[in-house]
């Protein structure tokens, strides 16, 4: 598939638009260790883009670069055609890029509802004084946001645990709540760091369904990291394969599956 900046329609009728985010020649080092070495790829509007690779390939580092937790020493990040300056994570979040974490970062002491409500913070405009003085306006804003959050809760089928403190939930549900919090911010780009790690088959199927539905119903662009090759091949439109910080493959699941470098990396051929 040749890279053109034109939209196309997939077999199942979803529209994939132009380039939403582009990583250009990204290099990231920690002291002497090179975590990412000169990697370029793009993410198109409306697609599900997977980043795969063996342990320690630099996948999570890449996600952290996109979400502003890490700052690459070389290379540029382009968002909607514009070069993005070095940003703090909260600024990136305010641009409409939401994320989940590999080992779950939720507010354990708060209820499921409150956790997902925090996803709306970037959309709440009234300041502190305004909230104190025009109580009615702040209340209206709260109600509007609350309605959206309730839709997310319905969508993820977690109505039954709305008021439960997150700390008491089992792992699989926590993952779902974290996805809900990211969804509540109505992101333009949703980053998922191993959304199915540590789940059983049934939970994996549920999560896959949610990811596909999010993409299908809201048209959200999704970039995800995943270990499970089978899942990735079913879910994604295009796949980037990383190994030892380098990109060794990029294309449709079909293309990647037949790529000799990728096969070697996964089967563990000795590196020279």
């Amino acid at each position, binding site marked *: 598939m040749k890279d053109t900046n034109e939209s196309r329609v997939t077999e199942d009728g979803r529209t994939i638009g132009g380039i939403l985010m582009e990583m250009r020649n990204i290099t990231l080092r920690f002291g002497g260790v090179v975590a990412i070495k000169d990697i370029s790829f793009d993410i198109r509007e409306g697609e599900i883009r997977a980043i795969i690779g063996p342990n320690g390939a630099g996948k999570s580092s890449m996600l952290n670069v996109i*979400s502003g*937790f890490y700052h690459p020493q070389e290379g540029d990040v382009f968002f909607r055609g514009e070069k993005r300056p070095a940003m*703090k*994570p*909260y*600024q990136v*979040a*305010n641009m409409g890029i*939401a*994320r989940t*974490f590999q080992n779950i*970062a*939720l*507010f*354990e*002491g*708060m209820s499921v509802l*409150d956790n997902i*409500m*925090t*996803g709306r*913070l*970037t959309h*709440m405009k*009234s300041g*502190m004084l305004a*909230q104190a003085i025009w109580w009615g306006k*702040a209340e209206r804003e*709260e109600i509007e946001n609350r309605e959206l959050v309730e839709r997310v809760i319905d969508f993820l089928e977690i109505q039954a645990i709305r008021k439960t403190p997150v700390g008491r939930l089992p792992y699989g549900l926590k993952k779902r709540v974290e996805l809900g*919090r990211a969804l509540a*911010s109505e992101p333009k780009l949703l980053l998922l760091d191993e959304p199915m790690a540590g789940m059983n088959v049934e939970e994996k199927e549920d999560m896959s369904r949610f990811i596909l539905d999010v993409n299908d119903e809201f048209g959200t662009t999704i970039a995800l990291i995943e270990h499970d090759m089978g899942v990735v091949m079913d879910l994604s439109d295009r796949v980037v394969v990383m190994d030892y910080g380098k990109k060794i493959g990029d294309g449709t699941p079909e293309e990647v599956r037949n790529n000799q470098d990728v096969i070697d990396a996964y089967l563990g051929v000795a590196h020279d």
Partner: protein
Amino acid sequence: MPDQLLYAMEVTLNGLMAGVLYALVALGFVLIFKASGIFNYAQGVMALFAALTLVGIMEGQVPFANLINAIFGTEIHTFGWQVPAVLAIVLTLLVMILLAWCVQKFVMRHLVNQEPIILFMATIGLAYFLEGLGDLMWGSDIKKLDVGLPQGLNATIDDLTYGWFGYGFFIDNLDIIATVVAAVLVIGLTVFSQYSKQGRALRAVADDHQAALSVGISLNYIWVLVWSIAGFVALVAGIMWGTKSGVQFSLSLIALKALPVLMLGGFTSIPGAIVGGLIIGVGEKLFEFLIGPMVGGATENWFAYVLALLFLVFRPQGLFGEKIIERV
């Protein structure tokens, strides 16, 4: 009713009122601890600094007068004007917010992700710095603070209780006001943290920094906000204590009384700070009244700490603190 019992009731009431003042200081500790996990040793000194600044502004004192005079050989001490209490309180609040900003900008943001003990040490440093700064800015003599709060015997209560029991209770007007103020503060802070956007962000930061960043919360902003609120609580505590016993440097020692209050109430609970304060207040007054004479008095100095020690042994998370669960 026997005299002893009546007297004990009066002592209890007075203890409750004193407890409210302890609780006011403890409240400032809880706020910062909840939001950033820092035990702010400087909270008591912040109350002192706020009270000093308030008196200084009201009396039109020139800040750093001694320093200026020493350098330039001048003899200025006051601007020669009096600032009305309300305006002075607003100005002091602005100073406290500026202080919060400076603490964040010059100290705390350089210590992100450090061990709690290091942050704690930083606040000890901050406490002594503030004490010195207060001294340098406003001088070290004991000052009288009068923002127009009524003080002295509450005649209504005296009359009423005299009518009921034939013995009038002595309740200080200032203590009644402190109680009302503390109640309003607690309700206000609870509503703020539960229902406002900033409150939710504040709880989020307290819970998980990384997650908070990922939903678009600026940690710096939240910390300045928290230290500002703690500064505001310190100002309220400073006004109450300053009016009661004069603005003097021993005021910063009341911070130490807040420690047992926190151990009782739990470091993370706003209602806990209030209840803890009340228990310590009543406990030490009653203990002094009932047991004091048998052991030679002066029990108020140590009673609170012994009580706190007992709590540490039997219920380390305090009455209202988050339960400590060990997962294996």
